[in-house]
């Protein structure tokens, strides 16, 4: 699958999943099952929420990558200050790596909490 198509589908299908997961959470609350014991004990919740956190990070990164390639470029940073334009590619890489590491940290941290 082409990258453009892959990103497009990733963002749309993940957004649908978020809505469904939100519905699932509302259902848990409405049926009075919302407790830490339930959240850490239910295999269904563990699986669905793990999938949610992974998709959320991928969805967010796709959006942030778009923002980075729009606003952290030689052209756009050059409007702010010419000196920033020189470091545009470096700044964008730092921006992208920061959110990659933040996403990975959140995913791993969440999986450790929910599965250990």
């Amino acid at each position: 699958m082409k990258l453009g198509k892959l990103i497009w589908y990733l963002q749309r299908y993940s957004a649908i999943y978020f809505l469904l997961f939100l519905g699932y959470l509302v259902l848990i609350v409405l049926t009075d099952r919302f407790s830490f014991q339930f959240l850490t004990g239910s295999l269904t919740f563990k699986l669905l929420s793990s999938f949610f956190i992974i998709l959320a990070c991928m969805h967010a990164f796709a959006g942030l990558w778009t923002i980075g390639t729009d606003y952290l470029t030689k052209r756009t940073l050059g409007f702010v200050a010419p000196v920033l334009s020189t470091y545009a590619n470096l700044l964008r890489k730092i921006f992208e790596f920061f959110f990659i590491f933040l996403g990975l940290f959140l995913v791993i941290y969440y999986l450790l909490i929910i599965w250990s």
Partner: protein
Amino acid sequence: MIDVNIYRYNPETDKFPYTQTYTLKKPEKDIMLLELLNILKEQDSSISYRRSCREGVCGSDGMNINGKNGLACITPISQAIKNNKIELRPLPGLPVIRDLVVDMTEFYAQYDKIKPFLQNETEPPAQERLQSPAERDKLDGLYECILCACCSTSCPSFWWNPDKFVGPAALLQAYRFIADSRDTKTAERLEGLSDPFSVYRCHGIMNCVNVCPKDLNPNHAIGEIKSMLLSDKKKENIIVSDGVS
């Protein structure tokens, strides 16, 4: 009296661009903005702008009129004037050569990228490649583009990535050939637009539709291209929609 504020910049003499205000008597007739510029040019011959056909066909005099892109030759001053002021700036996002004249190299490079000509590898017929009236109808709302660049230069995605995002004008033309029953290179054309930037950077904010002086709908054409890229929609299934026809 009306004030006409014009963006001025001559790279040979000016370090920075500035706005020059010209005050003149409001014309009795509701003349077009281009005529107003011609009157001003008689006062100050250093004002630079492009113009040619003076009837909205050549697309030369695209400029930013009170914050909205348009053609000076078909914009009456009654429509442009706000609080007895008219603000004229060059098309946004493109490098300024001088005053209201912009360098359109990036715009034409994107137009060139979509191969804006009919491609058909089959043996040419004796006279011409024929189309049915229904096939011809699919091109309405697409072929009329005059490449004035009003749409592309009102698009933030084109401002940020003019070298990667094809832009509404060129995408409208890309779809014009994709939708053409005589063109046989649909797959190749779509392949050339399948990266994350060329088409997918359009977020559908519809500035292009809002400013098009020919009342065309590039956003609809882009939507059709996206639809074809995302699905297995075949060329023969292209229908004429209200948005384009």
